[in-house]
């Protein structure tokens, strides 16, 4: 705690805490709580803490008018921009931003104590980045909620396809799937993330590169390497399980008609999803 107190005293002026009526002891208490909730050591947390933004968030949480004024000045426009960038729909963006503001302000119907979402900001990244992420979470939640409420007829209309009962041929692939699962599980997390983003989410190389802050060619090379290595190891595992080399090669081919059907279905579904958002925007235009 002495370290935290010393850090609070040293950075008190820079933190802007004074203008919100937060003294050194209160600042140290905030830091201690953040360190505890982040389940980390002070020396790991403090050097990278976004102190000024954390103080602003805590002052808003405490209901300080000046803090709210500053918060609105800095982040109001940004929140809408982020919501629009995420939803690509004006009505949805306004809904997202407005609902987030209400949650940040934390006023409930009964006018009781505030339960602002700002208490979850722990100063890892920027406050603006945290707000963007919260908006994205809310957007995904709403979108998934909408999708779950889609009726079976609507799903069929959208081109959803449902799996047929497992055939003997599928049962025979159990060894392949077991090998694939085992080799995937052995991959480092970042490589599995890369594969999932590219092959499951159909993110482009550019999107992945932007998120990982690397060049597109770096992502491409890594994907190539990881995919080739995975194929090789699955093949080796299948041969080890008793398959011939030819059987193993056939097992990891991607020409199965059933898979094609599944892929077509997924593609259609993705297209419909995009179309739905496009229509939504268009209707209001």
């Amino acid at each position, binding site marked *: 705690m002495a370290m935290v107190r010393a850090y609070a005293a040293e950075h008190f002026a820079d933190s802007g805490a004074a203008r919100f009526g937060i003294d050194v002891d209160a600042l140290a208490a905030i830091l201690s709580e953040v360190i505890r909730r982040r389940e980390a050591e002070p020396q790991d947390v403090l050097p990278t803490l976004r102190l000024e933004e954390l103080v602003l968030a805590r002052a808003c949480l405490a209901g300080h008018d000046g803090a709210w004024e500053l918060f609105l000045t800095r982040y109001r426009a940004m929140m809408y921009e982020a919501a629009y960038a995420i939803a690509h729909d004006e009505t949805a963006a306004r809904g997202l931003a407005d609902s987030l503001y209400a949650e940040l302000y934390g006023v409930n119907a009964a006018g009781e104590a505030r339960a602002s979402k700002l208490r979850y900001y722990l100063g890892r990244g920027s406050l603006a980045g945290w707000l963007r992420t919260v908006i*994205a979470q809310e957007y995904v939640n709403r979108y*998934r909620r909408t999708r779950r409420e889609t009726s079976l007829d609507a799903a069929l209309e959208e081109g959803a396809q449902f799996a047929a009962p497992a055939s003997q041929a599928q049962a025979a692939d159990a060894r392949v799937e077991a090998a694939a699962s085992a080799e995937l599980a052995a991959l480092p997390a970042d490589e599995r993330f890369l594969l999932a983003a590219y092959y499951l989410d159909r993110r482009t190389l550019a999107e992945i590169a932007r998120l990982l802050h690397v060049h597109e060619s770096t992502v491409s090379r890594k994907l190539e390497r990881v995919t080739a290595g995975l194929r090789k190891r699955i093949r080796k595992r299948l041969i080890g399980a008793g398959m011939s080399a030819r059987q193993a090669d056939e097992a990891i081919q991607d020409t199965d008609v059933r898979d094609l059907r599944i892929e077509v279905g997924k593609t259609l579904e993705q297209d419909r999803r995009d179309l739905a958002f496009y229509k939504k925007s268009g209707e209001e235009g």
Partner: protein
Amino acid sequence: MKQELPTSARKALARQAAAEAHPSADLLSGFVEHALSAAEKERVTTHLASCAECREVVFLAGAAAAEEQQTRQEHPAAAAARRLPWASWKWLAPALATVAIVAGIIVERSLIPSNAKPHAPASTVAMNAPQPALPTANNAADEVIMKRAQPAAASRPRQMQTRKATPPERETQLDRSRAPAQQAVLEKKNKTADAEAAAPPPPAITAEAATVPGSTVKSATAANEVNLQSAGRNEITAKALPSTAPSAAAAPRESAKTSGAISGAFGAGLALARRDTPAALRWRITDDGHLERSSTPGEWTRVLAELPISFHSVAVIGSDVWAGGSDGALFHTSDGGEHWSRVELTSGGQTEAGNIQSIRFNTPLQGSVITNSGATWSTSDGGKTWAHQ
């Protein structure tokens, strides 16, 4: 990609399910911004590898950040225009109607032989002057509106022509739109305008409709509006159009509240108002609550600095500027901030003393003010009287 992931591996990848709860937004935003410790990054990446929802969140948040940054760098004006895009929609219908009517008048008057129209020199002088109340051809707000006007395909080409007309073209169009009988009245009005221009500036404004100093342009424009059959419509076109977009010369966003005459989400205040004020004035409120104006990019002058008021919101509608702040302080100017009048928010013996957080004017007459206590004050007469809600 030369290599394809085996279908079996793809299925296995899809079958993976996150065993733990979703990481907090703090962790996910830290991941997006590369601000996590090695242990935190490993934990989040492991989760992301098996959680499609959180992957979508980080990609969305990352893309939003990149888009904001890119827009800000490349198209600061567009970013500001998009900040409050919905504000333009409510005026789309009247704007389109106005443009269509004006276009119709232009076409109709263009059929009248030019020698049938007396041309008053005074009118030309007045029309050559800047016209703050007329639609700004280069205004990004107009661009936004026109892009959204595509459903009205039949009238769109004419609207585009009218809206994008250069000032001299507008002058010609307006001249053509005047009936000969109206020209006589116009001459009289323009003479009045000239007389006003020659006269010394009047005293500071104390009433909303008072004449402003240097009002040659305003008076001439007003004369035109009076004498056109579409006088009211011109007024609407100019002043009721959403003021969400900056002028073409809008500078990159600075660390100040930014918005137009109509405040954005959250019912809060706004600041950088950039259109249709005399001499293309721009307005902002600084982080420390000072109201500032600028007529030259990068040069800001504090306004009402002598008052012990922390400003929170400024709104511009046409040539009117409203600024509000602490302790219910609300100020209004019609001359670009040369003269201000304090407006009391009072109704039925009740006077507002809270901090004004948001000012919103849809027309020069109709607007509302929201305070930090949640009270809403509205006016329909340009601020002469207010109703408390």
